[in-house]
């Protein structure tokens, strides 16, 4: 069933796979590009928001910084009395709403030699102005000592003022100096204390999407404002990083406290969400403001869009799937029916019904072709039956003809068991059922053996008939006392007469005088026989100059004589031997025959015949035999 569905399934799979790839590429590209656009916008927004917030905070800090700085200048430039200082401090605290308190703290014994500490402090508490001299040894307090040791204005780390009701405070301290005998000597520190509530409010007002927020860390990384109040003033960004084993967070924190700014991915300390974080320092005190943009919320629009597009794609995909299945089904359904019909026809059921296909497409054409094929096949098969019957008949007749033809050639060897003067052996190998080669031998009288070998032009049945005629005629004409010349001349005249089929035969006829070994012979256009000496010498018998029989009535056939010595053999053959062809279309050739025969010296006739046949067979191995092959060997022994 699965195999029957082959095309439909493959078509659906390939098309849908292609569509899936295309859709995913488009979707992914779309997602990443829109993400990048949003990210760019977020980064720009973040930069704007951060720098505007930094500016808001810093302008306040700068305003505050001016107060103690001016006071420090005042302390250096003007002569003052104790009460002057108190009045100045009081006025400053009263007139600067953002300042909670101010102290001018003197170095040990710097105010007067008999007071070690002198630090008048005006501060606001619950809306009322309060005054105290700082009661403790303030020289090692951060707000005093750091400005003192650095000789520079400095913002303290923020701290919780428990006395003021748990308000987060920070102090800005400015050292002031006095000229003593030409030397500028540190006289004390002016410090303004401010509440950081306004700072917390500014940063708390930063709201981005649902959960975005801002937070501030001090120079030491202490978390000053943060939506998670548990972190504020208890943790530094580094302790949080340590708690989470987050080395990256620590590195970002280090960049923040170094006063760098940047835009990074950062896990929210509050929601634990992955955020984009923009951070930038407050120029006045190097605290660092960070603004968190929750990644998922920034991306929620594009995520929604992406989801919708994805849903549409899936729906479209399914629709397409149904369509493809339907279309490919409609194409392959008639194909399957045709395939079943073809199988039936192949099994021989020529009556199988070819399904009707109404469509005018390729499948319709295929169905029509099938119908035509079926009827043609039917007709062809019936014709084939008749042809086959005729062929069988001809073949059986040819078989009979072959048997008859072979029957007229002498096939019993040795043919004359009581004659010791010579041995004779012949072999014929027709190329087809019947052939045009012939051979024969018979005694014309007690001492004269006539032997003949011939080759009719053409092949098959006409040649075989002509061969039979020739053989019969030679035997009829070769009567006692006639020379080969006479015999052939007469045979030629008879064959040429009314030779409408224009067939001819090459023929070699020899008459052996068994007493003397003399052979008188006549060659009518036949391959010249070879004379084999017992020593292995091979000689070509002298030609006699006659043409093939049946060509011209007036043809003359002079004869020659040769004497066979004892042990000499005469090898006669048809051109089927020398013109046998191998795969490279080379001929066996007379020279190769001579060479092979030379190597067969001392062999028996049987061995020579079988040997030559074997050589020719192996030479033309793989090539169908083109011509009849006939060999005949006569070996003369002489009288005992």
């Amino acid at each position, binding site marked *: 069933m699965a195999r029957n569905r082959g095309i439909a399934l493959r078509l659906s799979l390939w098309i849908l796979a292609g569509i899936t790839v295309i859709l995913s590429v488009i979707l992914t590209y779309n997602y990443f590009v829109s993400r990048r656009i949003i990210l760019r916008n977020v980064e720009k927004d973040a930069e704007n928001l951060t720098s505007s917030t930094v500016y808001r905070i810093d302008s306040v800090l700068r305003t505050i910084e001016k107060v103690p700085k001016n006071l420090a200048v005042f302390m250096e430039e003007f002569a003052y009395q104790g009460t002057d200082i108190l009045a100045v401090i009081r006025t400053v605290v009263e007139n600067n709403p953002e300042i909670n308190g101010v102290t001018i703290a003197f170095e040990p014994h710097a105010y007067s030699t008999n007071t070690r500490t002198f630090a008048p402090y005006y501060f606001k508490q619950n809306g009322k102005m309060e005054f105290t001299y700082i009661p403790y040894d303030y020289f090692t307090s951060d707000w005093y000592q*750091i400005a003192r040791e650095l000789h520079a204005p400095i913002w303290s780390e923020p701290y919780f003022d428990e006395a003021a009701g748990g308000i987060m405070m920070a102090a800005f301290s400015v050292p002031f100096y006095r000229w003593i005998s030409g030397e500028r000597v540190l006289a004390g520190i002016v410090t303004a204390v401010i509440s950081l509530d306004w700072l917390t409010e500014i940063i708390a007002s930063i709201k981005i999407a649902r959960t975005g927020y801002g937070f501030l860390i001090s120079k030491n990384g202490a978390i000053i404002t943060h939506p998670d109040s548990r972190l504020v003033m208890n943790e*530094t960004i580094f302790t949080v990083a340590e708690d989470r084993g987050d080395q990256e967070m620590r590195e970002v924190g280090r960049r923040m406290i170094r006063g760098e700014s940047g835009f990074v991915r950062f896990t929210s300390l509050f929601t634990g969400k992955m955020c984009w974080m923009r951070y930038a320092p407050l120029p006045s005190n190097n605290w660092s403001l960070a603004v968190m943009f929750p990644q998922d919320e920034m991306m929620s629009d594009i995520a929604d869009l992406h989801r919708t597009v994805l849903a549409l794609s899936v729906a479209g995909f399914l629709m397409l799937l149904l369509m493809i299945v339907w279309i490919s089904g409609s194409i392959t359904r008639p194909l399957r029916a045709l395939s079943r019909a073809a199988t039936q026809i192949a099994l021989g059921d020529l009556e199988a019904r070819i399904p009707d296909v109404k469509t005018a497409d390729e499948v319709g054409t295929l169905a029509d072709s099938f119908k035509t094929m079926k009827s043609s096949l039917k007709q062809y098969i019936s014709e084939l039956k008749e042809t086959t019957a005729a062929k069988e008949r001809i073949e059986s007749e040819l078989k009979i003809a072959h048997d008859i033809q072979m029957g007229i050639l002498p096939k019993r060897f040795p043919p004359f068991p009581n004659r010791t003067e010579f041995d004779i052996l012949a072999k014929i190998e027709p190329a087809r059922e019947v052939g045009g080669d012939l051979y024969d031998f018979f005694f014309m009288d007690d001492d004269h053996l006539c032997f003949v070998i011939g080759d009719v032009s053409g092949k098959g049945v006409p040649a075989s008939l002509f061969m039979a005629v020739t053989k019969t005629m030679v035997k009829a004409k070769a009567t006692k006392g006639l020379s080969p010349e006479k015999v052939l001349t007469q045979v030629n005249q008879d064959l040429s007469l009314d030779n409408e089929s224009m067939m001819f035969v090459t023929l070699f006829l020899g008459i052996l005088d068994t007493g003397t070994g003399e052979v008188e012979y006549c060659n009518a256009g036949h391959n010249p026989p070879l004379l084999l000496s017992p020593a292995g010498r091979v000689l070509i018998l002298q030609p006699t100059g006659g043409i093939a029989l049946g060509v011209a009535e007036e043809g003359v056939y002079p004869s020659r004589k040769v004497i066979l010595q004892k042990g000499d053999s005469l090898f006669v053959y048809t051109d089927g031997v020398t013109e046998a062809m191998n795969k490279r279309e080379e001929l066996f050739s007379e020279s190769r025959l001579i060479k092979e025969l030379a190597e067969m010296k001392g062999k028996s006739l049987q061995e020579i015949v079988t040997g030559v046949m074997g050589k020719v067979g192996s030479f033309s191995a793989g090539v169908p035999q083109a011509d009849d092959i006939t060999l005949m060997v006569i070996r003369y022994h002489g009288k005992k």
Partner: protein
Amino acid sequence: MIKRRLLQSAVLAAVLIPIWVHAEAPLKKVVFIPQWVPQAQFAGYYFAAEQGIYRKHGLDVTILSGGPQRLPPLDLLREGKADFATLWLSTGIQARAQGLNLVNIGQVLPRSALMLVAKKARGIRSPRDINGKKVGLWAPIFQLQARAFFKKYDLKVSIIPQPYSVNLFLRDGVDVASAMWYNEYHTILAAGLNPEELTTFFFPEHGLNFPEDGLYVLEDRFKQDPEMCRSFVKASIEGWLGAFTHKEKTLDMVMKNLKREHIPANRVHQRWMLERMKDLILPSDKSDLSVQLLPTDYYRVATSLHSSGLIDLIPEFTAFYQDSSGHGTQ
């Protein structure tokens, strides 16, 4: 997780059951004052108190809160408002030399955690580099090792009184700061400085090991009930072992204590402190928690006190130290 809870409950039950069994016997009421705020530096005692280990040893211990805002432990001991206190060995010797007859019944911290720390960026990499620099030091009793260190390396330094914060050091107001390894050193790391950016000088590595936190009791009180003192030491050791085993539970306690005292509390910092306390009290190469005070350590500190002019005469070791751990020769 649940398995661990079960295990903890089982341990807890095993600890609690003996209390009920011994509930008949009257518990001895004693008061204990650690020398500083209730941080992980004293985790073992809080653990022993909260997990009923003191009660198991027949003691009903009240732990007072120490720290810069509270009465000094020496005053509390003197006035009888506390029975036991932890003190630095140097403080203990000084007090005895000055006439307060207290005895050391267990030297919990055998190794000094006091150190000097400097920024490599300020060019300080070896003791020699400190020469001519500003060094922040605490009160005189904490300056002994530093001064001996300066003497040893022949350093002239300008000493700046150092407050409890390390901000002066972080802002480069001083080049070298004093720090406790388990406390201020981590505060510095928690302000964004990396260990590889700091050069540290641990006094024990410079032949100046002055053991720190030890357990003290007035000699009269000790003689009155040495068994009770021994129980206190034993239970405290058990408490420390418990605290090291159950770190997170111990940290919960410490955090709770700090919040109760309104001290900025930071769990990561307290975890660091607890882990360093383990390194100091029960280093991984030791299997046994010993609170024995060694005479060599004692005389090293006492001699230094004497030569610094902080004490006039050196108290006898045998009078000063009363081995109560059960590990000693007694």
